[in-house]
């Protein structure tokens, strides 16, 4: 087994285990920390695919900004493990069975797809993921969506402030 395969299995196993721990931990703070582990593993995958820009953006935006926001909200609410009443066991079982059926269906579909047989992913080479190449594409072909995201961010900011503001009429 080459080093690439070893790293792939290691990062995949880490990501799946951490994702399961996100579901299984009772304390929401622990869930956030496990989710950060998932994001680090996925960034490792991006680095293995030589998508360096996305690896850094994933760490900064997801593990840095979004998870800090989650942690901040959880600590603001002072949630502890006893705050969540348990769902009925049959409902949990139904959810797990539904998700398992979904997984089995998609895996069987993907394993039979003729488009995906004998296709390999280019690892650790290819300069498509570098900032230089992505910047050229982003500012030539995708310049209108890029500008529209600024309007999206502005509206999201206004929306968050309006929703989070204390209602002065009550």
């Amino acid at each position, binding site marked *: 087994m080459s080093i690439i395969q070893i790293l792939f299995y290691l990062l*995949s196993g880490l990501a799946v285990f951490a994702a399961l721990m996100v579901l299984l931990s009772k304390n*929401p703070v622990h*869930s956030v920390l496990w989710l950060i582990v998932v994001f680090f593993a996925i960034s490792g995958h991006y680095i293995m695919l030589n998508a360096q820009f996305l690896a850094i953006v994933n760490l900064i935006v997801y593990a840095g900004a*979004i998870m800090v926001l989650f942690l901040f909200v959880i600590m603001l609410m002072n949630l502890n493990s006893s705050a969540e009443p348990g769902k009925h066991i049959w409902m949990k079982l139904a959810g*797990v069975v539904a998700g398992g059926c979904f997984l089995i269906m998609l895996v069987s579909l993907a394993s039979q797809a003729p488009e995906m047989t004998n296709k390999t992913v*280019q690892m650790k080479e290819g300069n498509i993921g570098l900032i230089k190449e992505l910047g050229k594409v982003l500012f030539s072909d995708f310049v209108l969506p890029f500008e529209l995201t600024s309007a999206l961010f502005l509206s999201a900011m206004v929306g*968050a402030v309006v929703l989070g503001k204390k209602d002065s009429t009550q």
Partner: protein
Amino acid sequence: MPVNYYIYFCLALFSIGVVGVLTRRNAIIIFMCIELMLNAVNLLLVAFSKMHHGAAAAGATVPSTVGADGQIFVFFIMVVAAAEVSVGLAIIVMMYRNIHSVDVNFLNRLKN
């Protein structure tokens, strides 16, 4: 690396996210599971981008930009996810302020 491995791994992550949305009642955990699903899709998009780039770069003499669209899409998904999280967490904070809980079962009727 065969692309099937990436497909199976991303499907596993996505299904874990689906199970989390279906089984948990804490609104914040549900939100985190949605982030998990978004990340699984992101990784699959990057893998497909590298698959097409590798196939195009194999015979080409000039460097090609085939597959850059997939990574740009991932970038935009991250942008939309950041906006979504800011608004969604504001909604959760408002909900906690009104009913002092983040249990989604209390939201089954939005009126009152």
